Every structure is written in C-alpha cells, then in structure tokens.
C-alpha cells in the first residue's frame, strides 16, 4: 500500500497500530516525548521522531509539533489512537488541511459528539431513546422540579465537553446541587477548557453496553456487535467483554440496529462506538459516541476474528469497506482486563516505579496488548494503563477461567498493579453468573485467593534466606576476595549445594 502512517499516540495503542501496519506492510512513524524516548512504540515503528517534552500539552497534545513531525518524515496519513487528540476536530482538520489522510471520522462528526448536548440531539433525531433531561446547558441553579423532563434526585451533573467517563459528578439533593455544580464547572474548565454543564438522570444499577460500528462515510454502516463494560471504577472501565452476557437475541438486534441507525443518519466514517445504559427494566438509553478506536476493541476482534484497525486503515485508504455484514459472525466470548499502575487497596491511587522484571502470559486463547518492557520507568506523567490481557473462550465461563489463568501468569516486578484485584473480580460469584452493573465495585469486597498467613510466611522466609545468603556471601567475599559482580554465580553454587 502506498501509505506512510504517523501514529499520534503512545503506549499500548501505538504498539497495537504499528503491529497491524507491519502486517499490512505499511511503514510507520512513532512520535515520542522526552520520557518516552525508549518506549516500546518507538522501537517497533520503522521510524521514531521526538515531538517535545514530557508534558502532554507540549508533545502528544501539541498539534503544530505533530504536523511538523509529519512533514519531517513525509507521512501521508495520521492515526490518532484513543485519548490525546483522537476526539479533537481541530486536529483532524489540520491533518486533512495538510493534505494527509486522517484515520478517523470527519472533523464535523467529531465536533457533534464532542458536545454531549449536540450528541443527545443527534441521537434523538436518529430515533434513539435518550435519557430525559433538557438539551440545553444548565443556567444558574433552578429547582430541579422547574427543569422538568422528569428529572429527580439523585441527578448527574455532566460537562458537555466531557466523555469517556470524565467530567461526571453526582448530586443527591437540592442542597448538594449548588456545590456539586460549582465543582463540576471548575473541573470541566480545568479538564476541557469549557465549563458548560448539563443535567442527566442517574440510571440506578445500569449496565454499560456499547456497540462497535464502522461506517464508510456514505451511509453504509457495519456493526461488529456489542460489548459490556459494566465493571468500572470512578466511571472508568476495568473489565470489558463481548458479547454482553445477558442480552436476548432480540435485544441484541435492536441495540445494534439503533447504533447503525445513528451512524447512517450522520454518514458516519471510520470506527466508532455508540454507548448505551441499560436500566433494570432492560430499557436502552443512548449516552454518548466515542468517535475513535477504543481501549476495549480487542474483545470484539477476538469474537469476530477481524482486525478492526486493519479495516479502519484499509477503509481510509480505499474509501471502500472490504467486508459486508454477513462476514461478521461473532463466536464464543472474550474478556479484557486492564492492567493499571494503580493500587486498588488504596482507592486506585497511581503507583510508580521501574519495571525491574517482566514475564507476560501466553498459551491458548490469551492475547496480550502491552507497552511494558523491563527497565521501563513508570511515572504519573501519562495514563496509568500499562497493558491489557484478553482471553477468548467457546463460552463466557471458559473465557473467565482463561483470563484468570493468564493474569496469574503475569509477573510485573517493581510496581504495584491491580493484577490480584482483577483476578478477585473474575473469581467472584456475582461476576461469574453475570450479575454485574456499573455499581459492581461500590460494594465489592475481594476474598483472598491465597491465605494471608501463607503469603506472609513465604515472605518472611524469603527475606530471611536472602539476607542470610547475602551475609554468608559477604564473609565469603572477604575471606576469598571474591568479585561482588559474581555474586549470583556464587549464590547458585551454594544453592545447588543445599
């Protein structure tokens, strides 16, 4: 193919895109900030070019720097990945104005979905069921009753520029409302540079179900089926699966049809995800569209056997879709777990450190999408997601068991992660029977997989033995004047001896 692709992103998604390009024989350009100068995506790509300092605003969010990198490397196309500039219409515009291919929706489409109120309007016009609530921003602080649209407390205060779970706050009562609104406005300004907010009812015990679509930009839209992403912390997805375990064929058809309908309405181009909430009456409400590839896309790839990034690139390149709907036949079940540099025991606070040892899982039905490497310095400069493990199985139970097995094999030395926590979720009865909703983690208390006393005993013995060997070695060394660099070799001698 006559294309040279610059990937305006980092981490596992940049690696992910490079992989597909290598399989398509498309030359790739990685961009990197100071801290990322040795990152995996810079090594796997055919070329790597520095775009600025660590601060995202000066590198991965820096449009001029990225365009400059494109010019320097003669890139003919740009893939934005997810996050960073992936939903920024100005970026897509700038790329296309520079005469390059932007691998994503039209800028105009992005600006619609970038404004949650416009998105609600568009969805309603396409005949989708949208959560009640006014389609205008909240002015001042009227009583909820005055706003009407059967809004009632608790109510969500959302930033119109938000999305992906960011910019959402809950107000439980009228007296709380004032403070929550102020807080939400401040946050929205800080996060999105736009303090406009609006109100949306809170759906109790909702399930998060989303539909993957691909549009050719001329009204033809394919669906790759749905995903369920109800396991969330702070509105952030943690475990995702395909298909949604509890949908009836009828429900599945109706939700995917609705998503396609919205796509057709807008002549949607490229990959996109239409997100819904399913309430306890199994009613689907549109919430938003993510006009880009998503973190959880691999579960769809594993059940359909189709490389979504490949289809996205080929479509951008040829303007034609290489598939028809009947080519897409999801089979079995796939589940993804996100490996985070966060400590679940302490409210998911970010953790940092150097990856001093790494062993990733393998074997049947396991896929690892990772940006980790031994020697990597994990900082808080960027998103805390380090890696994803995805398991496929003929059915959900097999996929669960496989994913548990895979997570158990994962060894990440030198950094606290959520690996054990993820296993505990998969291990829990409610998850195993599919009794999940977005409040799952609120009242989830993990049961230990290994008796704590066993673990602490192992730790105690390991520490004692280690110091003991160090001491013996120290004496040994002083007696025989051994070179400390040979310590390991020496230890192994003594060990084989013991």
């Amino acid at each position, binding site marked *: 193919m006559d294309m040279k692709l610059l990937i305006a992103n980092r981490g596992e998604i940049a690696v992910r895109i490079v992989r597909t390009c290598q399989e398509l024989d498309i030359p790739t350009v990685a961009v990197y900030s100071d801290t990322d100068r040795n990152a995996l995506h810079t090594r796997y790509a055919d070329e790597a070019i520095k775009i600025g300092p660590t601060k995202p605003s000066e590198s991965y969010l820096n449009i001029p720097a990225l365009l400059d990198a494109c010019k320097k490397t003669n890139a003919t196309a740009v893939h934005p990945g997810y996050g960073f500039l992936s939903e920024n219409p100005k970026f897509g515009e700038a790329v296309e104005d520079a005469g390059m291919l932007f691998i994503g929706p039209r800028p105009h489409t992005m600006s619609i979905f970038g404004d949650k109120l416009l998105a609600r309007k568009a969805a309603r016009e396409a005949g989708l069921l949208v959560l009640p609530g006014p389609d205008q921003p909240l002015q001042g602080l009227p009583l909820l009753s005055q706003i009407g649209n059967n809004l009632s407390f608790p109510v969500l205060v959302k930033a119109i520029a938000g999305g992906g779970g960011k910019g959402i706050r809950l107000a439980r009562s009228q007296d709380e409302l004032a403070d929550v609104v102020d807080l939400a406005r401040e946050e929205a300004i800080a996060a999105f540079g736009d303090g406009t907010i609006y109100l949306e009812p809170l759906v109790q015990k909702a399930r998060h179900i989303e539909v993957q679509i691909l549009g050719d930009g001329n009204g033809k839209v394919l669906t790759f089926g749905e995903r369920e992403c109800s396991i969330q912390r702070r509105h952030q997805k943690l475990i995702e699966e395909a298909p949604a375990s509890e949908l009836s064929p009828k429900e599945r058809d109706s939700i995917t049809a609705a998503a396609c309908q919205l796509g057709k309405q807008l002549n949607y181009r490229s990959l996109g995800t239409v997100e819904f909430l399913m309430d306890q009456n199994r009613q689907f409400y549109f919430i938003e569209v993510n006009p880009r590839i998503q973190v959880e896309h691999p579960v769809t790839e594993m059940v359909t056997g189709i490389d979504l990034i490949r289809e996205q690139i080929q479509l951008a390149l040829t303007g034609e879709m290489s598939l028809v709907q009947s080519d897409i036949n999801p089979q079995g079940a796939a589940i993804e777990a996100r490996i985070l540099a966060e400590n679940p025991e302490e409210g998911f606070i970010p953790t940092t450190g150097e990856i001093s040892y790494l062993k990733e899982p393998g074997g049947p039905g396991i896929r690892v999408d990772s940006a980790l490497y031994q020697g990597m310095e994990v900082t808080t400069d960027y998103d805390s997601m380090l890696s994803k493990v995805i398991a496929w199985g003929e059915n959900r139970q097999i996929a669960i068991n496989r994913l548990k097995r895979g997570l158990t094999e994962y060894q990440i030395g030198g950094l*606290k992660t959520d690996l054990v926590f993820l296993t505990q979720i998969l291990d829990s009865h409610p998850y195993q029977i599919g009794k999940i909703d977005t409040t799952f983690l609120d009242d989830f208390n993990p049961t230990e997989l*290994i008796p704590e006393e066993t*673990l602490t005993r192992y*730790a105690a*013995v390991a520490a004692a033995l280690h110091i003991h060997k160090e001491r013996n070695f120290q004496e040994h060394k002083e007696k025989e004047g051994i070179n400390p660099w040979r310590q*390991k070799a020496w230890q192994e001698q003594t060990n084989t001896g013991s």
Partner: protein
Amino acid sequence: MADYRVYVGARTYDVRIEKDLLLVNGDQFEFDLESINGNGLHILRDRKRNIEAYLQSNQNGSYDIQINGNHLSAEVVFGFHNQTKTSDQKTGQIKSPMPGLIIDILVNEGDHVQEGDTILIQEAMKMQMKIRTPNSGTITKIYTKPGNQVDKGVLLISIDPDDNPNR
C-alpha cells in the same frame, strides 16, 4: 546457625537457619531460596512446590516482596529479641551480626533502652541493618563509633539488663 526476626505486616516470624535446617517459629521447614536472574526473581522452594518470589531489598534492611502478584513488605532484624535465651541476652552484649560499616549509634552510655529499640545501624552489601536490643536495660559501654569497619561477632555495645540475674 543464625536467627532472624522478620516483621511482615502485623505478623512476626522468628526464622532460624542452620546448615540444612530451617525453623519458622519453631516449626521445621525445607525452604530454599535461589536467585533466577539479576532482576530480583527468586524461586522459593519447599518440599512441595516452587514459588516465584520477587524480591527487592531497600536500603534500610526491609524488603518489598511479590508472591503471586501480592505485594508484601518484610523487615528483617538479626536475632530474636524474645524470651529465648541467647548468650547475648544473658549478658546483654550486642555483637556485630556481620562484617560491615557502623553507620550510626542511636544511644549513649547510661541511656535506658526498651527491648526491641534500635540502638545501632550497620551497613553491608549496601544494605543498612537496624540492630535492636534483645532486652531492656541500661547502656553500660559503647565499644565502637560510626565509620568503624567491624568484623562479624565483634562486641559493639554492652547493656546491663533490667532482669540481670547477677544483680
């Protein structure tokens, strides 16, 4: 023969290591530890299984340990400072548990100390070890000073135990 007291979270383990014998709180085990690569991965082997234990030793004689993805932190102190009778304890003599550099002495002669207090810090293999007193008593003499390089078993500090039988 060597004794170590290890604190892991709320738990305390007294580990005694002899040639081919290992006692944990008095019970015998057949544990063996082996370094797999230069990156902290070790195999903790007992009669039944091979356990992957990932160790990082911190400067202050404490360890970060990962086992099956669980992160534990262990602090190791030389000697049991419980009621088990060791010669040190009878006489209240604090000896150097290993060859190394005296980093700091936290007490002065005449001070009164409680069992378990850290009284001295020694360094070896770039690891700092807290040396604690095995019994409560009064510091009678300090035989060394920071910056001294001492061999194993050298008398460092002597204490007059409160429960001194000879008193």
